[in-house]
């Protein structure tokens, strides 16, 4: 086990320094047959920012939930400032000075900011003093917020601010940030890391930053622990390491340049242009034609506004744009979820009725939906069941499921798509995000579609899974499938697309070929400027 060599390294370090703020020893946690944490040993020093880096499913979040008392470990011990502690409840953790800023927010949306901040405290409810304290913290760390705003009305960045204030109000000596930038814009992320430095520098707190983004960990932390498959496999100092070596430690192999860049969030103009020049498409007749479609939602809000696009077999068309400009509705339209006010959708010259359940799918359009938990999979069902969720024909006899056939089919797919699970009967919830997405991909490709819509296909996935998804999309295009890639990750679009359409305010604001990408124009189009 790779973890074991690290046990000795960790123990050796402990002798050299006084009791660390946190020491985790032999922490093990299993969920069913999945080992989330496998004898993890980790020491966190005071006054430093510790990065915990790992792919999805590496056990980072579980480890932190154990530290905060949300999950009870099966084995192992925790000492805080050298004193052995049993943390069986978030309240105990709070008493010990451990606070966490959660990945999925711990806020109650209908309540106001100050009500959320004071939630979980004890004593008489004193709105005035809570409001004042919110103001003080806001000023001290540059986290300005209106204490009387309803949390449900706030943007993701501001919600996180509330979360941080809520955490800091209890004056924790140890602050854990779980994937803090997954919902933030780049500017908001920079702001966050600034205040993170303040928190450490000003009060000598211990900060833990859990992330799967290499650049984030590299730039915002001091010490980095890398987790893989439930174990801490390596430790590096942020000052002495670089992104490639972190990436190697995280995935356990060399990752391709593309996904490394995706993980870094860097944009390399020259390279992108080079890649785009290599393939010039000879355009076949379009298979999918979307003609001047418009649709509006509740309250007359315009969702799609006179949008047109063509997609040819074997072509990857990237839909770029800032999120919330109609991309989701475009994918809804092609999933038969959105009825149209105007315009039409044609496949092979045939107009397809919109908003009629299953019509698009029957016409040969497969969709990898944006939110896989919401509309891609059923978490409580097995891998095999999820694979045949919409089409049981290949595993059914006389309209009855043939369990043996289902089992064989699932085994075959699991092997073909390298889905990491205990078998066809593994419950879907036991799989990591990347593997869940592979199940969705496998199912959609099994329909032998003519058009594949991939909406944010790599969201929340780790480097390895992103790379895999890109390869599969290119492979599908190579087989003659028209691929519509809707993504808010510009790098992903630039890497994979033959043609790029930019969406803004529900319409296609501009188009460019792979060969003639102009980054500046792209940015202007995304920002809604006429270019």
């Amino acid at each position, binding site marked *: 086990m790779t973890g074991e060599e690290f046990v000795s390294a960790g123990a050796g370090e402990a002798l050299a320094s006084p009791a660390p703020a946190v020491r985790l020893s032999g922490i093990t946690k299993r969920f069913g047959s999945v080992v989330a944490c496998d004898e993890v040993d980790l020491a966190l020093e005071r006054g430093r920012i510790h990065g915990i880096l790992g792919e999805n499913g590496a056990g980072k979040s579980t480890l932190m939930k154990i530290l905060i008392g949300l999950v009870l470990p099966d084995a192992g011990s925790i000492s805080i400032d050298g004193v052995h502690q049993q943390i069986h409840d978030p309240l105990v953790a709070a008493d010990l000075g451990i606070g966490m800023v959660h990945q999925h927010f711990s806020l109650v949306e209908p309540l106001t900011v100050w009500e959320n901040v004071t*939630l979980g405290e004890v004593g*008489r409810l004193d709105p005035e003093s809570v409001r004042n304290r919110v103001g003080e913290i806001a000023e001290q760390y540059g986290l300005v917020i209106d204490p009387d705003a309803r949390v449900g009305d706030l943007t993701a960045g501001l919600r996180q601010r509330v979360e941080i204030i809520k955490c800091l109000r209890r004056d924790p000596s140890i602050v854990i940030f779980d994937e803090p930038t997954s919902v933030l814009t780049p500017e908001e992320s920079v702001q966050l890391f600034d205040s993170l430095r303040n928190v450490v520098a000003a009060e000598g707190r211990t900060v833990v930053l859990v992330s799967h983004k290499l650049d984030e960990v590299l730039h915002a932390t001091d010490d980095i622990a890398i987790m893989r498959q439930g174990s801490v496999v390596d430790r590096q100092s942020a000052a002495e390491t670089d992104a490639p070596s972190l990436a190697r430690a995280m995935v356990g192999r060399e990752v391709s340049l593309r996904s490394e860049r995706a993980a870094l969030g860097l944009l390399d103009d020259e390279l992108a242009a080079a890649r785009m020049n290599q393939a010039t498409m000879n355009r076949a007749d379009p298979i999918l034609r979307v003609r001047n479609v418009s649709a509006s939602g509740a309250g007359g809000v315009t969702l799609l506004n006179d949008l047109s696009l063509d997609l040819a077999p074997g072509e990857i068309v990237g839909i770029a744009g800032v999120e919330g400009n109609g991309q989701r509705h475009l994918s809804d339209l092609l999933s038969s979820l959105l009825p149209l006010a105007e315009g039409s959708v044609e496949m092979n010259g045939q107009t397809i009725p919109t908003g009629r359940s299953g019509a698009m799918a029957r016409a040969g359009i497969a969709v990898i939906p944006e939110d896989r938990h919401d509309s891609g999979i059923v978490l409580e069902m097995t891998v095999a069941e999820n694979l045949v969720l919409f089409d049981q024909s290949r595993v059914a006899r006389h309209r009855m499921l043939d369990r043996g056939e289902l089992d064989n089919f699932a085994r075959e797919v699991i092997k073909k798509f390298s889905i990491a699970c205990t078998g066809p009967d593994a419950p879907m919830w036991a799989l990591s995000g990347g593997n869940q997405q592979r199940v969705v991909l496998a199912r959609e490709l099994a329909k032998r579609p003519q058009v594949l819509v991939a909406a944010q296909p790599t969201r929340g996935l780790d480097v390895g899974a992103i790379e895999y998804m890109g390869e599969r999309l290119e492979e599908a295009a190579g087989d003659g499938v028209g691929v519509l890639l809707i993504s808010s990750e510009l790098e992903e679009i630039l890497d994979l697309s033959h043609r790029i359409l930019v969406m803004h305010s529900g319409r296609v604001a501009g188009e460019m070929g792979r060969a003639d990408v102009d980054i500046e124009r792209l940015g202007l189009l995304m920002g809604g400027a006429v270019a």
Partner: protein
Amino acid sequence: MDAFFSAAWDVMSSDSTYLNTALFAAFLAFAASGEWVAERAGTLNISVEGMLLAGAFTSAVGFDITGSIAIGMASGLVGGLVIAGIQAEMSHRLAADQFVVGLTLNILVFGLAGFLDNEIQPETKLAHRFDIPLLSDLPLIGQALFGQRWPFYILYVLLPFTWWLVFRTRWGLELRAAGENPQSADVSGINVNRRRRQSIYYAGFTAGLGGGFLILAQIGQFEDSHVGGRGFIAIAAVIFGGWTLRGTIAGCVLFAFALASRLSIQGLGYDVNSELLQSAPFVVTILGMAIFAHRVRPPASLAQPFVRGLK
């Protein structure tokens, strides 16, 4: 059509309509205020029906033994709280389905109350009337609001107190959080199921008072059919009111008015099919729900059990 309007006018201008509306509304409001608290914490507490009936019975027995209206009212709490205890512990400690528990309790209480009533046959009488000076002389509503038997006036304290409890105390904040987003509340260190249990006890408390009110300030004699589904109308009032206390009270008044008009129409000598009239309050309830219920937002986790752990 003229006949309809003249009947409507007679009903509207009759003192007894207002007096009865106030009485029926009061009974509903006792039940609905606690039900509202329970629902804000995330429990759709259908055993409120059973709580009312149990409270009515124990208050009748309490009065029979002591001869004191005050002790009778206090004994009403016993019945309400016992049912609340079973509902709370079963659904939010043992994680049994809240509807199954509630249904079972309602049936159980109905049978038990009928049986015990035959065995014990408690004798009761009504509390004395108490006119609030000046206010009770107001036309139409004076007697209805300020000339009632004294347990009626408990509401004037109970309703503001309930509002204060939910919106001005930490307990209220925590129970609202438990009803909206139990996961977040749990992460924040709140014992979600304890808050939910406590809010059901509060529902038992107010329904117990409601049962006492029914016997000692409205009817004067225990009868197992007297609650007769009005616990469910109280639930409808909470939904009608969009899970606000103000709206809930408005719902109670509207539904009570429908109940009272029925009596007035018959009292005034109009010849309307009585079975049809009997159904009127429920028709109003359904109409009210159909018109208003889709415009409001229930607590996000209403009727969803909370179990700690990873999602």
